[in-house]
């Protein structure tokens, strides 16, 4: 039944053929996930799209089970989460998977974003593909933030208070916007209810944007480590079984690391204060968001002015939207960009430093360090990338993907 590149599939199963003639889902799967020509030279960085997809499905599946057992009411939310752990059969497993799953979803997505940056996957003709990815990232951040509020511990409550209060920095309408977000004059039951509703809704919007992301991906196909386009069948392999198998292997390895946290350190990535029930009268000594927000939190606090901090924080994500036009180099892959390659590593270090700044109280040397790291972050995107593309001399590109694969084998 399978066919090679290009020719439409013929289904021998009569039911499948009957359905496919009326609704070509089988042809679609055949074309997009079986014969789909994919560059033959992916490294393991290319696994993280599949891994992120698996994590998204896992988050939705565990999330629905949690929602069945959770009570979104301020006096009951904390205990209902504990009840899931203690009294729902295997409830602890579902909750550990969900709360660590959020962290590992972000780990997968951060590596996926790094891969896109390092190999220039955002460049023409994949700009919209990249932008859809940044939209997914933003939606994930909103979803994760609202999810962290639901257990209604101290960090839930105060994290929600700090982050929603940011909107009060908006001139003129700021305070009104915050009241509107809260559904009252402080974070309270209406806030918890709407966050719960939105936390349930947004993942399905993420699924929709992921679908668009995949559609956009399949127009021009994947980028690859050389950054040059496939020139013929010798440069590609069918997606199945080559990459279904390789992705499957990568997913399992990722799940092993994930399981290490879920089963042996489920609270390592969380904060002890979130096991203290929310108390509006007691402010924790040190309010920190989840680890995956720390670099952005550091940028927020690096700017002495509140509105300025909010603008810088959102700006840090906004620059990602225009990245395809900030990078002026015509060469995609950092492999052939001797200077950019190192600056990309410096950017990674910079983001890690920002994360450390976000984790520590804004005092002492952390303040100037976070300011320098914030400046460098924007310097990288807004100044370095446009200039570097003009002055850097790229290494000679290999004539084709097949050529680069064969040469590497010989060397």
């Amino acid at each position, binding site marked *: 039944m399978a066919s090679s590149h290009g020719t439409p599939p013929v289904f021998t199963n009569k039911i499948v053929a009957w359905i496919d003639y009326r609704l070509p889902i089988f042809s679609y799967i055949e074309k997009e996930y079986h014969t789909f020509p994919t560059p033959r030279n992916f490294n393991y960085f290319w696994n993280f799209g599949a891994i992120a997809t698996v994590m998204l499905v896992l988050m939705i599946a565990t999330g629905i089970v949690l929602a069945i057992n959770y009570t979104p009411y301020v006096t009951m939310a904390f205990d209902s989460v504990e009840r899931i752990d203690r009294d729902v059969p295997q409830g602890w497993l579902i909750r550990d998977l969900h709360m660590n799953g959020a962290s590992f979803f972000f780990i997968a997505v951060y590596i996926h974003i790094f891969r896109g940056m390092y190999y220039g996957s955002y460049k023409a003709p994949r700009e919209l593909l990249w932008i859809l990815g940044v939209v997914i990232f933003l939606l994930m951040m909103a979803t994760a933030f609202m999810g962290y509020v639901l257990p209604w511990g101290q960090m839930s409550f105060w994290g929600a208070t700090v982050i929603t209060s940011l909107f009060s920095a908006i001139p003129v309408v700021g305070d009104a916007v915050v009241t509107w977000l809260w559904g009252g004059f402080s974070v309270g039951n209406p806030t918890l209810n709407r966050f719960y509703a939105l936390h349930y809704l947004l993942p399905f919007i993420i699924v929709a944007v992921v679908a668009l992301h995949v559609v956009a991906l399949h127009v021009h196909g994947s980028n690859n480590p050389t950054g040059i386009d496939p020139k013929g069948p010798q440069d590609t392999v069918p997606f199945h079984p080559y990459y279904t198998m390789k992705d499957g292997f990568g997913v399992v390895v990722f799940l092993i690391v994930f399981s290490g946290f879920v089963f042996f350190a489920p609270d390592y990535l969380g904060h002890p*204060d979130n096991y203290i029930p929310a108390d509006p009268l007691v402010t924790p000594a040190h309010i920190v968001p989840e680890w995956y927000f720390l670099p952005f939190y550091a940028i927020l606090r690096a700017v002495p002015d509140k509105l300025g901090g909010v603008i810088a924080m959102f700006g840090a994500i906004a620059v990602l939207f225009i990245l395809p036009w900030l990078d002026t180099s015509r060469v995609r892959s950092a492999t052939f960009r001797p200077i950019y390659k190192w600056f990309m590593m410096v950017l990674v270090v910079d983001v890690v430093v920002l994360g450390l700044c976000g984790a520590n109280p804004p005092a002492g040397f952390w303040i100037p360090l976070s300011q320098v790291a914030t400046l460098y972050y924007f310097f990288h995107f807004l100044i370095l990338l446009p200039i570097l593309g003009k002055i850097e001399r790229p290494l000679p590109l290999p004539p084709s993907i097949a050529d680069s694969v064969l040469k590497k084998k010989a060397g």
Partner: protein
Amino acid sequence: MRRLIVSGAIALAAFSAGAGAIALAAGTEVPLPKRHWHFQGPFGTYDRAAAQRGYQVYAEVCAACHSLSLVAYRNLMDLGLTENQVKGLIKDIVVPDLNDDGQPIERPARLSDRFRKPFPNQLAAAAANNGKAPPDLSVIVKAREGGADYMYALLTGYVPFDKLTPAVVKEFSVNKDDNFNTYFAGHKIAMAPPLADDKVTYVDGTKSTLSQQASDVSEFLAWASEPWMEDRKRTGVRVILFLLALAGLMYAVKRQVWADKH
């Protein structure tokens, strides 16, 4: 490519170090002495005997002020007690309820009841304790940096006023009536030293020192915070062994599939 993967791993490690840094930042000022706990490590289990003694410490001392509202009496069977033993432990406990006429009554506790709360509500708890309700202990070990180490350090960390140096008294403006605790943030803690040598008489005959009581009740509270921990670790071992085997198979098949392309 290998170099890139290594860099990725370093970045990941740095990220997790960042998460660890949160823990440090919110920690107490004095480093906690590290103790060995039976439940540590990937195969650690709760020391049943210690946890049972810890229950005795909780029931005879802590329960006067601290609730343990998420734990039910039936859960004590997880600590190796039989149903009859637990029924014996709770035979004198009465819990508030309503009768069929809607009138408040007290009735003997059942296995399915959650632990009896010492105060009818938060306000009453606060009123009886100088305005601050004693915290519920159900998840206290997970809610404090350092967990059981912190519990033990706190319970044994009291310093009598006359043993404090004048410098410390001045720095933290300690009064004669204050309770000074080495490990409590800010050092002045509302709770008077709860434990002392021979404060409880252990039913199993263990010598009842302050250290023994603190260690036992910390073990008990660690269990109360996460009674499913042993199940979690057991499941984890099976899951990871399965995934390792699956990864091996997947890798072998992947090599096979790619054999003609390498």
